[in-house]
């Protein structure tokens, strides 16, 4: 069994819908969580498009993953971040991004934390492994 508590990161850089990568990244997040790792998730580059609200894949005939993204906290995936510049470049307001769950006590929505590139770089430098999508 793997050692618990190592720092691991999943980066999501590809856009949603058009490839399977974002959906698969969520699978990997869930499995990392079951291994009780110190998991961080970062959405950056086109990956931030997955955090845009109001997405509906019904017309594509694809199940989609928005429900899973909206329930990351329930799966103990709580350290979720988005890159500030990537959001800005794509015209997504920082306060518009989707919630990844609700606070147990207050019921308030929990959103990914928006960070600057330098903060993300520092986090990356501290990881044991990074799996990129």
């Amino acid at each position, binding site marked *: 069994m*793997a050692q618990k508590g*190592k720092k*691991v990161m999943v980066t999501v850089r590809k856009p949603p819908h058009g490839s399977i990568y974002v959906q698969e990244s969520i699978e990997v997040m869930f499995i990392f969580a079951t291994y009780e790792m110190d998991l961080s998730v970062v959405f950056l580059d086109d990956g931030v498009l997955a955090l845009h609200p109001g997405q509906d894949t019904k017309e594509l005939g694809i199940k989609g993953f928005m429900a899973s993204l909206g329930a990351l906290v329930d799966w103990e995936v709580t350290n979720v971040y988005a890159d500030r510049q990537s959001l800005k470049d794509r015209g997504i307001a920082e306060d518009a991004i989707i919630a990844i769950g609700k606070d147990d006590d207050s019921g308030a929505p929990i959103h990914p934390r928006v960070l600057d590139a330098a903060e993300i770089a520092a986090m990356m430098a501290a990881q044991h492994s*990074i*799996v*990129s999508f």
Partner: protein
Amino acid sequence: MKFGILINEGPYTHQASDTAYLFAKAAIEKGHKIHRVFFYHDGVYNSSRLTEPPQDDRHIVNRWQKLAKDHHIDLVVCVAAALRRGIKEENLQEGFRISGLGQLIESGIQSDRLVTFGD
């Protein structure tokens, strides 16, 4: 150093599997250990027993098989990615095994470095 390898592209179209193989070979020659290669996404095609390249071309599947046999490398094919693409036990090359994403996670944690090849 102990390496885990992740291959995300199929053989022949992209260079990823070739580069991963050459990396693994070079690392072993330098005294490092490759404990597992995980085949994910289109990378699962690297495990098909039905692969028959022209005679004057490299045989990517058998090359992995031999390297793994010679150096005790665990060749793991992602089950969900494999079933989506018609890779099953019956057409899986000997020396490969089908398992879940947990094997990738474990590889990333147990090795000193996890090196990704392909998109």
